[in-house]
Structures are given as C-alpha cells and as structure tokens.
C-alpha cells in the first residue's frame, strides 16, 4: 500500500475509532461537553450558559452552568489522556435548584473544591451574605464559621473560594441574605 493510502487509512481509523472510544468511554473534548452530556443523561437542562469553570486540585474542574434563573447545573470534571475531559468519579451535585417555590436564593458549598457557589433570581441583587456551618462526627452539633460576602454577577450567580476546616466535616451554606447596590436587604432566608 502506498504511503498516501496508508496515511488516509490511519486518519480514517483515528477519526472512527477515536469517536467510538470517546463515545463509549465518556470522554469529551471540553469540560462544557461533559457538562451538557451529563445534564441530558440526568434529564435536566441543558444549561443556557456556563457560569464558572473552577479549577480544583490536580486536573479537576468544577463546571457550573445556568439552567434557568432558579437552577444551577454543577458537574465536576477531570482531565483525561492529556487533551480530553471526563466526569470526575464520586458523587456529583448535578441539578441544583432553589428548594422551595418562594425561595429567591440557593447556595452550596463544595468541600472537594473548597468553594461556595449559588444563584439568586432577584433582579437588583448585588451582594449576598451567608454563613457556612459544618459538623464532623466528633462535634456535638453544627458550628457556624464567620459571615461571608460575595458579589452577584448579572446572571444572579455568585461564588467565593473558602477553605474547609477539616477533611471530615460536611458543610452547609445557611442564613443567606441578598442586598442591592445601596446595601438594602432584598431577601433573607434562614434555612
């Protein structure tokens, strides 16, 4: 076989087998593709916009998309084979909606990525304040850490890196308050 023909065969092989390999092993070219494939797999979304690609340790990344004004999509991904991306093993937050109909803000803490993220659907929201509480098996009850503030962007999204206290604890974002540009409280929740 001539070199030209052999090259064409190799390239066809790479495209076809490469496509099948990626399809059947859950690998994608970009973190966004992993996000959208898993949104469809979990039957929500797809996100209208990717709000944040937050780099974690090693080659991991937390991808956060906006499904609608009240719902986030949170998918952790990791690099694979240098140039591809796949879903990170372990639990995934997936669809993160505001819990109740009259809720106007939702906030979560990712202890793997040590970041607080959330969403509000209040139009004039500029800042949010919230506590993070944590508890491990040795603690009798949940303990509040200090109050934190984060800017809200034009999509109603906010995030803030926050180191965890210890590896064992589980964490919750609580007592969230949303403020406008004049510092006026627009909404407060205490869950």
């Amino acid at each position, binding site marked *: 076989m001539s*070199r*030209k023909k*052999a*090259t064409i065969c*190799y*390239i066809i*092989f*790479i495209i076809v*087998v*490469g496509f*099948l*390999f990626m*399809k*059947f*092993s*859950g690998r994608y070219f970009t973190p966004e593709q*992993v996000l*959208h*494939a*898993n949104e*469809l*797999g*979990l*039957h*929500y*979304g797809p996100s209208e916009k990717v709000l944040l690609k937050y780099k974690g340790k090693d080659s991991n990344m937390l991808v956060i998309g906006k*499904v609608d004004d009240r719902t986030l999509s949170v998918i952790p991904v990791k690099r694979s*084979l240098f140039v591809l991306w796949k*879903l990170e093993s372990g639990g995934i937050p997936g*669809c993160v909606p505001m819990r109740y109909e009259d809720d106007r803000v939702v906030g979560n803490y990712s202890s793997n990525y040590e970041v607080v993220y959330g969403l509000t659907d209040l139009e004039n929201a500029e800042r949010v304040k919230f506590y993070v509480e944590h508890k491990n098996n040795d603690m009798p009850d949940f303990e509040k850490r200090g109050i934190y503030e984060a800017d809200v962007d034009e999509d109603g999204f906010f995030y803030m890196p926050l180191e965890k206290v210890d590896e064992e604890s589980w964490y919750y974002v609580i007592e969230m308050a949303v403020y406008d540009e004049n510092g006026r409280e627009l909404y407060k929740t205490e869950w």
Partner: protein
Amino acid sequence: MGCREYKYTEEVLKYVRFKYDRIDIRQELNEHIEDMLEFAPEMNEEETEAYIRENMGDAEALGKELDKEHKPLLGWIWRISRAMAMVIAVLCIPTVINMALLSVYTAHNVIVGYDGWRSKEGIEYTVETNIKGKIDDIYILVDGVDKYENGKMVLKYKTIHNPFGKSAGWTFSFGNFYDEFGTRYYGGGGSGGGYVSYQVADINDFNPDAQKLIIDYNYNGRIFYAEIPLEWEAVK
C-alpha cells in the same frame, strides 16, 4: 543477514530528506546491490563502487528521485498518524472489554427479562400494554402491569439507551405513579442496567376502586404521560 556498506548507497541517502526512511532505503539498496554483485566478477573495493555506479546510475539522480517518493511532509503525517492509530487502538482495549461485558450483561437481561426483577409466583392478573416514549436519549417501552394475590401491582417497562446519543449513560426510572383520583404511589423496584434495561416498579396499596394507573413523569421539561386502563386478564 547484515549487508556490506557501500559508498554509493550513502551518497544516494544524502538526498533523502526524511531521515526516518533512510534505514529502509539503505537496506533495500544494499540488498539490491548484493544481488547484482552475486553475478559480477571478483573485484576490489574501488572497482566494486565503480561497477555499482555503472549499473545503478547516477547517485544524485537516484537520491533526488527517492526523495520525491519519500517527501518529509507526507512522511511525518504518515508517521504521526500511524503512532496515533496505535495509541488509540491500545487505549480502546479497556473500553472494548467494558463494552463486551456490558453487551453480555445486556444480552443476559434480555434473556431473563422481567423475571430477574420480579417473582412470577403469585401473579393473578395482568394487563399488557404497548406504550412507547422517549426522554432525551432513552427510549421507554411500557409492557404492562402484573397484579399479585396480595394486591401488589408491578409495572413492567424497558428502557433502551442510545449509545450514540448526546447524553452520558445515566439510568432512568419512573418515581411516582397515580390513580385517576390523584393519589400518588411511590414505585420502588429494580432494574437491570446495560443498554437495554428491564425495569419493574412495585406499587403497593393501590386503590382497589381505581380503574387506571397513571404514569405522569414531568421533570425539568421532560414529560412522559400514560394512562393504563386496568382491564385485568387472569393469568393461567
């Protein structure tokens, strides 16, 4: 068998720019020269080189001709594509094994059907249906409902995941069911997994006066709605 080195060959190779091909060309030329010298008279080294030149032609012309056949650009593309094809072939091995196991598991599910997930013992009545639907890349086929002596009902449905679809391969199951009076029933059960998954949903304490089982899946804009008239047929 090792070949002798010939100055002629080395001179030809100077004109071949794609160095990775020089080894093969050297071997081929030397073998050709060896064959030719087999029938030549006994000669010293200088005479041999002159004899080779006389019979093989101008080294520069041959070298330039070979260079045209072994262009560096095509050579590099060929070499890289070959290496990539080999890497992809090796990378595919675990995926192929995984797919093979999943296919065997799927075949097992198809053979076993619903019997792997619900007992046939105690089924008194059954309703057969042929309701089809699709949610994202998953095709759903509702095959019917069995009713047991103790009143428990079991909904039987298959989910078929399109492996070439856009979605990642998560499983799917119905959670809640209703009767025509709006009472909600939680349908826990089991499923086989794989590309074709046989699933059952156990529905307990179903209202004996209800005449319909309603599947009303509505989650993030995905809708699957079906009313199953409970026109029971006795199981022999």
